[in-house]
């Protein structure tokens, strides 16, 4: 390297003033020494040699709107483009994986899984703060072969959740009226969810949006479950044998009802073809409804087939749940662990798991025995009317006639009006009610 050329004279990267030279032989400019108006001869002080040019501060790109998310892999911030700003890992979108924890005793985790491009599962939860008080768990599984099922399933789950959260069928006086009210409440929840699916279906859709529906309503130690399709609700007691409370509307479910062993039926190629669903092409959206009294501490699990495919039998699912509880006791941790289990098994489908920890409230003396049964679903019962259908294979004894305990429980459970022909189980108002105060029941 040689010395920099000595002309023009430079100092700190700036030319030293007074050093411009014109080519030899070029005529002298007229009155070069005398500045003329408009001549560029005024030297701005800021242009003097040695005055550093301060580069502008680098401008940092504006933070993306919304709460910053952190990367599940490295903890770095997730950019608005959906990838981690540190390790580049793809962050699941809010729709691909989300959690709900409405109260410390209730949680839900919904995950896209590993094989599907979208998360068409949806869940929605509600819970009052006091442990084991009131909670609603809803899962809707969008049908993959239909359009916009991810949008529709979420809308359906939330609509159903809102209906179930508002209803208070337990306030009724007699088991019969209570069961009728539960049945009507779930029917209304499914109908409103069905409307929500329809509202998210594009006109003229070749494959209109469709989804399943399963909801659980926890009121103290009373558990009510309703479903359309093959998403499920389980009662999984601590240390005891669990029970499947929902009834699959699927070809497998029909074979099982017809006597085929569960394993064989569920392994069939068309096992997952559902026979009922929510959507504008649905024929019948009245849910199967089951109620039971939980006898002791345990978990209510509401889930999609993305979970139960890997552990269908209540006993098998109970073992998975026990492992999950051992890993972390809170509902969120347990729900996450259940989803992680499904992912570890291959995550072939979207996965939803909603949990409520129940059975911790001491039962009134003599109320510990289970009284459950399926409520008739073929048509809406008249409000307060006694049910006429008998028990189903999955529903057990004594669902119909009120027992002394049930009869005794009614008045103690709240200040609700007595069940009567005039009472509306949806609004808990005496009929006739003001016109337009609720939407008409559909089903």
């Amino acid at each position: 390297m040689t010395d920099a050329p000595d002309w023009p004279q430079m100092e700190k990267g700036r030319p030293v003033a007074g050093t411009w030279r014109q080519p030899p032989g070029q005529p002298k400019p007229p009155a070069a020494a005398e500045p003329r108006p408009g001549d560029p001869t005024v030297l701005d002080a800021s242009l003097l040699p040695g005055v550093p040019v301060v580069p502008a501060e680098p401008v940092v790109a504006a933070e993306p709107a919304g709460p910053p998310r952190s990367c599940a892999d490295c903890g770095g911030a997730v950019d608005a483009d959906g990838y981690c700003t540190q390790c580049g890992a793809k962050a699941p979108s809010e729709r691909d994986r989300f959690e709900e924890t409405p109260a410390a005793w209730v949680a839900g985790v919904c995950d896209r899984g590993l094989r599907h491009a979208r998360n068409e599962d949806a869940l929605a939860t509600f819970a009052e703060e006091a442990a084991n008080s009131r909670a609603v768990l809803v899962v809707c599984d969008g049908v993959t072969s239909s359009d916009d099922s991810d949008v529709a399933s979420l809308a359906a789950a939330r609509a159903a959740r809102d209906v179930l959260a508002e209803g208070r069928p337990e306030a009724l006086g007699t088991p019969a009226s209570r069961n009728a009210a539960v049945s009507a409440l779930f029917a209304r929840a499914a109908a409103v969810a069905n409307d929500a699916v329809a509202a998210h279906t594009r006109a003229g859709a070749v494959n209109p949006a469709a989804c399943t529906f399963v909801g659980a309503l926890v009121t103290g130690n009373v558990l009510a479950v309703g479903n359309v399709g093959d998403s499920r609700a389980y009662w999984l007691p601590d240390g005891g044998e669990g029970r499947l409370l929902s009834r699959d509307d699927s070809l497998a479910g029909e074979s099982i009802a017809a006597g085929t062993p569960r394993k064989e039926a569920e392994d069939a190629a068309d096992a997952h073809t559902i026979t009922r669903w929510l959507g504008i092409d649905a024929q019948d959206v009245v849910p199967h409804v089951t109620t039971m009294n939980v006898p002791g501490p345990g978990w209510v699990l509401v889930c999609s087939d993305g979970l139960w495919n890997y552990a269908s039998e209540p006993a098998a699912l109970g073992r998975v749940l026990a492992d999950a509880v051992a890993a972390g006791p809170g509902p969120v941790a347990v729900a996450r662990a259940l989803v992680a289990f499904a992912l570890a098994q291959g995550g072939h489908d979207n996965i939803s798991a909603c949990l409520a920890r129940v059975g911790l409230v001491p039962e009134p003396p003599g109320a510990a025995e289970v009284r459950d049964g399926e409520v008739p679903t073929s048509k809406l019962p008249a409000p307060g009317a006694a049910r006429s259908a008998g028990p189903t294979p999955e529903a057990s004894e004594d669902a119909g006639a009120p027992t002394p305990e049930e009869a005794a429980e009614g008045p103690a459970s709240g200040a609700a009006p007595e069940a009567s022909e005039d009472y509306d189980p949806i609004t808990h108002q005496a009929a006739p009610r003001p016109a337009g105060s609720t939407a008409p029941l559909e089903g």
Partner: protein
Amino acid sequence: MPTFTSTVYQNEFLPDGGTDVNAIVRLGVSGAGRAGASGKAPGEIIIVDTSGSMGQVNMNAAKQGAMTALDTIADGTYFAVVAGTHEAYLAYPMVRTGQGMVEMTPRTRAEAKQAVSWFTADGGTAIGAWLNLARALFASMGNLLGYKHALLLTDGEDRDETPADLDLAIRACIGVFQCDCRGVGTDWIVSEIRKVSTALLGTVDIIPDPSRMAAEFAAIMRQSAARGVADAELRVWVPQGAQILFVRQVSPTVEELTGRGVPVNALTTGYPTGSWADEERDYHIAVRLPAKAVGQEQLAARVQLAVGGEPVTQGLVKATWSNDAALTTRISPEVAHYTGQTELAAAIQEGLAAKAAGDEATATTRLGRALQLAVASGNEEATSKLRKVVDVVDAGTGTVRLKRAVDKADEMALDTASTKTTRIKD
């Protein structure tokens, strides 16, 4: 307001254990507006070789060219005219102190043209000194100017300073101004001038016929005035633990950028791209990542254009590991095309260098490969220019013979055009 676009072409699927991701990122600007239309005034410096070798014909053509360029520069632009020999002179404005550039007005244009008319061909060639003067003139304007551009005309080899002098001057000018370079006649060295144009984000070309100089200068000035987006930076973010293998502009010309990166932050590197008119440029980015498990997807690079330090568009380069060979063995046609165009540029330059060094065997092989690539990719300019240097035996296999009598200007034209690429055929 300019609008910015980005498009990524890649095969994001990597086989199990795969680590290297290649992508072509096309960045585009539209609605750039005129240089200086918003914000600071633009600055133009015309640098004319007035060495003795120019002779009467080239000198007169250069004067015509410079005057046409002055006519093309818009009023309001700040400008200066530099006359270069073994020294560098400020021909216009005729000032000895202060700001070395003036605003273009009808009066200053007339005065500048008169100063150009006094040019006489005399003395040697020291291109580094000319660049130093241009840099000093721009610097004398402080922060007044936004877009800064120079047009440099030479006819000869840089004899009157050392290569180190030239390198030093070039390095000092990087980031200060952009420079388009033209050589007249066949006594100048393409590689020497390409060093200037490449470092200063400009173009290099030969003006074989002096009579075409005025039109060429006018075209350069018009193009320069259309660069309404000043000082854009290509930014490449890669994840922690990843490595940028290379960053290369591949369209409209091949420009190796890898070594020119400056860190923006721990994970982001910035590469100067100069100013933009309404245009599209393609970049080939290669990133090496730690392999992840099959089924995993991650971001391999964020490729942004930043103007004034602010990202204005972003393309995402992705990586997804897969067991499906049908996915992982596919090569992006755009990546393949530009890999070929890059090899074409290298083959031409290496072939011509070997020919100049008397190594006919290497020259024949490399130029043959160049012809094969040019024909296969439909690069008609390279094909026609190669055909003036070699006789083609079989284009398919790249079999050629060196022509016995080659016009030096044709060889130089092939050299300057070597980096020009075509876009992929649709």
